[in-house]
């Protein structure tokens, strides 16, 4: 009973209501700007709200969190530039949809299913938090390795036929992800002797270059072609029956999203990739092929990354452990406001838990409302002539990559990735596997090596994969997924035979 009262606080307190709404709205707008990461926004809010009441600050932060992760998909769909790492997978089908004149449909569907995913995340947080946390905490290094490899299998479908080139790009991506100081051995890797490179290549910088700058250069090629705007479909709001069709798949990927989000070593970006992968594996008859504008290809990653937020809050509130970079800032916020985030947080300040759950539900409701309302505003982006749009995006990529570390070197890296991406595009090398490699590389590296260090030789290392229930299940899933993709291997084999 008390819990329900606390849950309702944000709904009844006009101040909190307003803050959640403002946060969500601001998050959608700021999140849509590539390079302005959600982490940056939340860190800013933390420093602006030192003197506020704790609940006020948290309400604003939660709003921005949900809004920002969602907002990033706007840029993925409309200009093929993910607003943040969580929205990379959304661009795989979102942008092709926009290219086919269905931008409005993509924006609407992703909004609705971000809301669904977000709500499911919050429901799991409210009902199963301790259980999920205990499973997440027992997730071992091998499990992370399998998860990352599972994500890596996406290379097959992202290469669109050029599998060998795709594998090459993914490999290069992994190596780029490993640049810098080896967190395990302490040595420098691929730094070519530069201290600047010791901290590694910033992931968002690579993203801005490979998706943003290279896309600008690529589009310059077809500057005078008629824009998408000329055949933009004027679909009104899709019928309810059509929307509900996607509910089952969204529920499944949301569950994946919550769980991956709850893992202390994996966040929304991996949740979205695995969600996309799951949709691709299980949806038998998509409206179009995946990668060419399948509705499920937009719905799945967006539901998964929204659900991952609820997931990330689980270890934060039950154990005081951050589930991703953003929840790490939440920990700082709780400390600065005089709370002790840890396993005792729920006991000592249980009201906080329910107020946060309430605020999260509220944030999702506002996300749905604002998200649908601003579709018409966002859609205007595709009607802007390229001559105007491309220079503005160029400026955004420059400022965005600069602002991550206030470093001009990062901007040159971004430009470098831009030209590499452009060369890859005109030579028909798929760019997405490269990004996939950069995302998953560090996780594969550290989890593989830690697992190996903790085992007694190679035999023991392999035995570990069938040793515990979680790992065994993941191993089986991995093997089946790999077998499901055997077309990769048959094509390679076929080609080899011919050569």
């Amino acid at each position, binding site marked *: 009973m008390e819990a329900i009262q606390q849950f309702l606080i944000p709904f009844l307190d006009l101040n909190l209501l307003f803050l959640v709404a403002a946060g969500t709205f601001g998050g959608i707008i700021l999140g849509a700007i590539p390079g302005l990461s959600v*982490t940056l926004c939340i*860190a800013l809010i*933390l*420093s602006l709200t*030192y*003197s506020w009441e704790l609940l006020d600050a948290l309400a604003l932060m939660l709003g921005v969190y949900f809004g920002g992760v969602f907002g990033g998909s706007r840029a993925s769909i409309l200009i093929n530039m993910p607003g943040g790492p969580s929205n990379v997978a959304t661009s795989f089908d979102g942008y092709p949809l926009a290219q086919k004149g269905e931008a409005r449909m993509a924006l609407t569907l992703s909004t609705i299913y971000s809301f669904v995913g977000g709500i499911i995340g919050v429901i799991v947080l409210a009902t199963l938090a301790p259980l999920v946390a205990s499973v997440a*905490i*027992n*997730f*071992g*290094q091998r499990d992370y390795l399998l998860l990352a490899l599972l994500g890596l299998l996406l290379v097959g479908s992202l290469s669109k036929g050029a599998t060998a080139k795709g594998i090459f790009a993914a490999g290069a991506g992994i190596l780029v992800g490993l640049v*810098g*100081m080896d*967190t*395990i*051995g*302490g040595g420098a890797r691929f730094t070519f002797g530069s*201290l600047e490179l*010791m*901290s*590694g290549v910033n992931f968002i910088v690579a993203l801005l270059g490979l998706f943003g700058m290279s896309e600008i250069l690529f589009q310059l090629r077809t500057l005078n072609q008629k824009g998408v705007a000329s055949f933009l479909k004027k679909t009104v709001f899709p019928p309810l029956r059509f929307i509900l069709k996607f509910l089952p798949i969204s529920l499944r990927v949301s569950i994946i999203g919550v769980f991956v989000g709850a893992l*202390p*070593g994996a966040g929304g970006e991996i949740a979205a990739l695995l969600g996309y992968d799951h949709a691709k594996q299980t949806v038998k008859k998509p409206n179009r092929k995946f990668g060419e504008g399948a509705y499920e290809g937009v719905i799945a990653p967006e539901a998964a990354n929204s659900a991952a937020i609820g997931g990330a809050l689980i270890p934060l509130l039950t*154990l*005081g*452990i*951050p589930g991703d*970079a953003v*929840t*790490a*800032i*939440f*920990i*700082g916020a709780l*400390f*600065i406001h*005089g709370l*002790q*985030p*840890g*396993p*005792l947080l729920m006991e000592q300040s249980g009201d906080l838990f329910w107020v946060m759950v309430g605020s999260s539900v509220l944030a999702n409701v506002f996300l749905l409302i604002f998200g649908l309302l601003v579709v018409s505003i966002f859609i205007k982006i595709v009607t802007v002539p390229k001559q105007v749009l491309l220079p503005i995006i160029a400026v955004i990529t420059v400022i965005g990559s600069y602002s991550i*570390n*206030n470093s001009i070197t990062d901007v040159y890296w971004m430009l470098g990735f831009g030209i590499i991406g452009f060369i890859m595009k005109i030579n028909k090398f798929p760019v997405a596997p490269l990004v996939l490699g950069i995302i998953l590389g560090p996780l594969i590296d*550290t989890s593989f090596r*830690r697992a190996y*260090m*903790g085992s007694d030789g190679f035999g023991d290392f392999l035995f570990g994969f069938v040793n515990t229930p979680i790992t065994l299940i993941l191993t089986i899933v991995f093997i089946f997924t790999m077998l499901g993709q055997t077309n990769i291997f048959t094509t390679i084999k076929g080609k080899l035979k011919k050569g």
Partner: protein
Amino acid sequence: MNKYFTKRRFLIYCTAIFFFILAACSSNDSSGASEDNFPEKDINGIIQWGEGGATDIISRTLASVAEDEIGASLVMQNRTGATGAIATQYVYDQAADGYTLLFGAENPNLYQILDISERDYMNDFVPVTIIGQSYAGIVVNADSDFETLEDLVAYAEENPSNLLMGTSGEGGLPHVASAMLRNELNIEFNPIPYDGDGPLAVALLGNEIDVTVLAVSAAQEYIDSGDFKMLAVLNNDSLDSIPDVQPITEIYPQFETYLPWGPFQGIFAHKDTPEEIVQKLSDGFDAAQNNEAFTERLTDLGVDPLNLHGEDAIEFVQANQSTSAWMLYEAGETDISPEELGIPPVEK
């Protein structure tokens, strides 16, 4: 059409030349900031570690209090990587005018000896203030069979390199602490590196590692909740926050020479910063650290407020460096002799 094209081209060339000329005569417009009216603009605070960690929380909390005392906005920024060497180098590369400050932990003390970077607190920086020190403790999961430190040591003696010891990388707390144990007790662990206190706590909760060394602040909550057991605190006295845990010197008195020793947080400026400016900053942060709410936050975090300045601060940093550097060298963790780097040995 053709005419238009050439006109456009001409324009492009003109602007290109314009930019080049500008680039060529890029003036050093950083007119010598006068020391009397410091600060005249925002001060940049560079935090060595990531969001949510102890260094981050302490730095940001202190910054919010110190803004009024110093009379300028502190713009805080995390620059992580290479155990803080990136941030350290960055601050070193900025003008020595007191407008860029390093909010750091103990790590730069060991950069030279571990060959991570050429920078070093003693040679390249001047401490504005040392905020506080915390202590380290040896922790195991609550389900662990080890009830006391002696159990653990006995097991490690019989099964060398069998116990999985979670570490936080080169020069991190567990790395130095296990060197300490090896020196005095001659026991070996199998080290598995993680990315910091948070991931270490997760690994210990999930029983992925057998033992680790955590800052008391990071372990406290889990000890209170009954998830972890702390076998000993690496200090020569028991701590107020965990009075039941024995100090290691009570079990093995030979550790006395190294202690007290532990992680610390401080604010540093480039060594060439004018003295008046360092003094002004020092005074400002001094006043801020006397703020009651701030000291309360520090104690909550398990950090001993120190508020050291000037010579005291330098002495403190030197002592910490000597202990850690010689310990690692004697344990054979590094081939670089602290002597060559001019690090004096610990006075025994």
